[in-house]
């Protein structure tokens, strides 16, 4: 049996833009088992600081496993210092992946805020095979949060970008791009991942137009295995764990509180 936790070599670790990095890990068994929406839980170094593992969506799973990450604290700083050949302790793939859109739907819209774009390249790899039309609405804070999206384009995604300060694309939150969505519930399905207020605005929009969708959620995690019940979030069906019941949830099941 494949071990759910193992150590693997870093293949590459490159900076994509001012804020984002892309780490490639030689973890073929993880890549083979992975499905879009799942994540890996990384122990960034063998020490008590930082104490917890750190969860990252799987950005790509081909021969290697890749993640897209933003440096925000100690854990991601340590990750950014990794070099080719370094060893990384990886648990995964874990979590419930995205569901495919219901039958009859041809068009998916992926709505991402910042590194919330991470699960969508892998998703577009899979949806491309199934010949979906794809649109990516991407909202970044500034141009430092906008990276080269060539691979999304190669998968056939139409891309629209906004930044809070207007330094790239349309000025404003990603909601300014909702006009790009064909709001026909028989044709369009939504995937979203990003900060909570952003996902709440997507949920409002989807509700208004009766669109179905899925959202990938975040919460602080300890085990990543459904053991500690620490990463629970509120849903219409009671508390659910992000690491086991999610990260992918039915968009309308989630309860976002301000």
């Amino acid at each position, binding site marked *: *049996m494949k071990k*759910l*936790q193992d150590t693997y070599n870093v293949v590459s670790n490159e900076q994509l833009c001012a804020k984002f990095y892309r780490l490639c890990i030689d973890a073929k068994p993880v890549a083979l088992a992975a499905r879009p929406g799942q994540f890996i839980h990384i*122990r960034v170094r063998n020490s*008590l*600081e*930082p*104490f*917890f*593992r750190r969860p990252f969506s799987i950005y790509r799973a081909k021969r290697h496993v890749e993640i897209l990450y933003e440096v925000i604290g100690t854990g991601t700083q340590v990750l950014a210092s990794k070099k080719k050949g370094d060893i990384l302790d990886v*648990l995964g793939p874990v979590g419930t992946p995205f569901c495919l859109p219901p039958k009859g739907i041809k068009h998916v819209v992926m709505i991402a805020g910042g590194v919330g774009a991470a699960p969508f390249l892998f998703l577009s790899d899979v949806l491309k095979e199934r010949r979906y039309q794809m649109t990516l609405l991407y909202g970044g804070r500034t141009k430092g949060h906008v990276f080269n999206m060539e691979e999304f384009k190669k998968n056939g995604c139409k891309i629209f970008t906004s930044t809070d300060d207007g330094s790239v694309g349309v000025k404003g939150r990603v909601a300014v791009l909702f006009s790009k969505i064909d709001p026909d519930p028989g044709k369009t399905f939504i995937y979203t991942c990003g900060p909570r207020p952003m996902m709440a605005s997507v949920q409002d929009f989807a509700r208004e137009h009766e669109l179905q969708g899925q959202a990938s959620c975040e*919460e*602080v*995690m*300890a*085990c*990543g*295995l*459904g*053991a*500690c*019940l*620490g*990463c*629970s*979030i*509120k849903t219409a069906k*009671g*508390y659910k764990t992000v690491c086991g019941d999610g990260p992918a949830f039915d968009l309308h099941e989630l309860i976002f509180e301000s």
Partner: protein
Amino acid sequence: MNITVKIGNAGFQNPVTVASGTFGHSEKYYNLQEVKKLGAIIPKTVTLKAQEGNPPPRIAETPSGMLNAIGLENPGADRFIEDKLPALKKIGVPLVISILGHTDEEFRILAEKFNAVGGISALELNLSCPNLGKKVLVAQDPEATCRVVRLVKDISKYPVIAKLSPNVTDIVTIAKTAEEAGADALSLINTFSGMVIDIKTRKSVLGNVTGGLSGPAIRPMAVYMVYKTAKEVKIPIIAMGGIMTAEDALQYIIAGATMVAVGTANFINPQAPLDVLNGIKAYMKKNKIEDIKEIIGNILT
């Protein structure tokens, strides 16, 4: 080499177990051969009625540890017995069931329910959960500790283990009370009360405001409590608090613990309980220790 240990009339193939609330992932992570190596399994505390748990966020990372306020989320005794117990029994490792009653009567009903199902090695009484908003825990009140332990001991067909809270002035007093009331063993310790404040929002980082601290951060305090208690009681101690490695576990054994439980470490290194077991065996081999009992409480001063 003999590493078997006993608690009351229950025997265990080795002294390594897992702390309640930290081992809900055995089917996901382990294959059967691996998990069979554990001395015992202690699942998450079961209450009489289902509890949905505390509002999120429920956990926070702290220096060398974590704060949690899960709020005893569990499906309640009946559903636990129906849905979860069969799979746990199938593993074939002795089960220690952790129970918590909100009243004496609930403790009595819980003990009776587990008497009826059979196939359990011991009951652990969670007298020390700090997360239910009560001002005083059972384990902070010698009289209540005595009453609850005696009540369960009178009816339980299994050995009874009292799990104590470190949030007391003198844990030895409570430990002796539990022993006098008939406890077959003590679990030391549950989490230390704690809190973390986000200075940007001026709010606690936990939905429940306060929580329980665990992990290596608490280990020296827990080792101290085990050391002090072991000198004063005759019943065995199951020790826990920040055990990440065999070296950590051996400190507790030398301080007087008969068994050791791996808790928070499961979240960081799911392999930790087996690493601890292998490390204890390696230490005994290296130091030519034939029987684990030679080192239990054998601290040189």
